[in-house]
């Protein structure tokens, strides 16, 4: 996306990818901000990045796999507040306060 080309098609595609529904007012705000913010983020390209390796973890030199691999399991029924009802697990956090 360059300049002011935030059009409905671009934003609709992003909203579909993000699985997001927005109000009309939010749609207009995000469309406007998408231009401004994308232009700002493109400033990164102003640095000389040729030959630079991407950095995904600040201490990449010390990264290691967990010792116990994938064999550790948590039994959901042992977690606080969990009930089992007719073979179904009832999680404690359903239901909003407001």
């Amino acid at each position, binding site marked *: *996306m360059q300049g002011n080309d935030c059009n409905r098609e671009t*934003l609709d*595609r*992003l*909203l579909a*990818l*993000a*699985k*997001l*529904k*927005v*109000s009309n007012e*939010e749609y207009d*705000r*995000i469309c406007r*901000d*998408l231009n*401004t*913010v*994308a232009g*700002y*983020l*493109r*400033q*990164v*390209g*102003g*640095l000389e*990045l040729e030959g*630079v*390796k*991407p*950095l*995904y*973890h*600040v*201490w990449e030199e*010390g990264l290691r796999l*967990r*010792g*116990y691999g994938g064999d550790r399991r948590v039994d*959901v029924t042992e*977690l*606080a*507040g*969990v009930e089992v009802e007719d073979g179904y697990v009832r*999680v*404690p*956090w*359903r*239901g*909003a*306060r*407001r």
Partner: protein
Amino acid sequence: MIREEAWRILEEYKTGGLDPVDHAAKVYERIARWEPQVNAFIEIDSFDLVEWMAEQARHAYSAGEAGPLEGLLVAVKDNIMTTRNVTTAASRILDGFIPPYDATVVKKLARAGALIHGKTNLDEFAMGSTTENSGFFPTRNPWSLDRVPGGSSGGSGAVLAYGGADLALGSDTGGSVRLPATYTGTVGLKPTYGTVSRYGLIPYANSLEQISPMARSVRDVALLLDVIRGYDPLDATSIEPEDTVLHRLEPADPGEVRLCIVPELLEGADKHVVSIFYNVVEWLEAQGTLVEEARLPSARAALPTYYTLAFSEAASNLARYDGILYPAKGESGNWEEYMAEARGRGFGLEVKRRIVMGVYALSEGYRDEYYLAAAKARRLVRDEILALTRRCIIALPGSPVLPPRLGEALDDPLKLFLMDAYTVLANLAGVPALAQPAGFHEELPVGVQFMAGKHGEPALIRLGLLVEEHTGLAGVMAE
């Protein structure tokens, strides 16, 4: 000015000069006075419960079994999981969520005898710099009620500033502890990445964020950091911290400190902020500290680099809120429509904006131009900061501006981003950074920030204690 420091309260508990129940009652009187105006807490425990917990602390002292934080009231940012209270990350999509396990730091606090008495407000999912983006209500700055307390840990900063807690936990993704500390006249320390477990922190941008201690003095943040840090096998990015006992350190000898300032970063900052910053630097220099000017050439791209990475990680992390497992629900349509509806109802505008930007930065055709470029730029920024902090401690203001008025920055995302100009550097590089009060301009707090190399927490604490000797602001709170 009223002053109160947690380590002094502990000393009084030990000598019998102060009773934990009486202290808890005093804190709750302040909460009753301030909270209706400030709105720092999302949820707060009843005094009956806290009184009971304080009685247990009293018994622990009598029995000689007191933990290192026994009887202190600790407020916890509401993106850190607690099984006794709701944990919402200030988002309606998590309203009513009671986590099935406690965060590692919460378990450590409980073992240390701390009394967790409430969950503090934040920008939704920690996305913001003012605490106005909370899904529930904005928090106000106790020093000036028409101003913001900074963000995203603004609830924790505000509650400390009015004396509603002895210590507090925040999380710092791009300055979310240091900015509130700067705006509320409190102290925040972002530790070296990996040295405090993130297990139980609701994630926003994993590669950048750290649970971080907040308090009203440098010795108090050291006290809290001593308890919460440590290797945790439940956090894949956890590393061993260095093993100095931080809260027993003495102020640095000024002649042993080497400080770097980066003048180009101060261009455009508020003149009052710059003036108070130089006041601290010049005092240190007069005491014998070597102060030199330095350059960080890639720092000009630090903010867009930070935001590109943070948005991208946010888009990925928040994909888990699908309207099925967590409280917010959709109503009709197929699965995709149901999910979009639930997310549309549950997330606020700022969260939606950041998810969209993150999806954009990661999407086909744009990934190399945005996300990959930012990951490369991060290496340049990190390497420059690691190289400079091997030579000196970097000094900067905590923020380029004074605390804005409510609503002042909310409409303009770029204005909001600029508040983080001095703080994102430490997150991109993974290094520790301390923000503490430097002075006041017309009754508004102004902060100074120091950044050290990996595992440089002892040097920061010692320098912070020295600076407190100059400012005299340890323990200060709003009246």
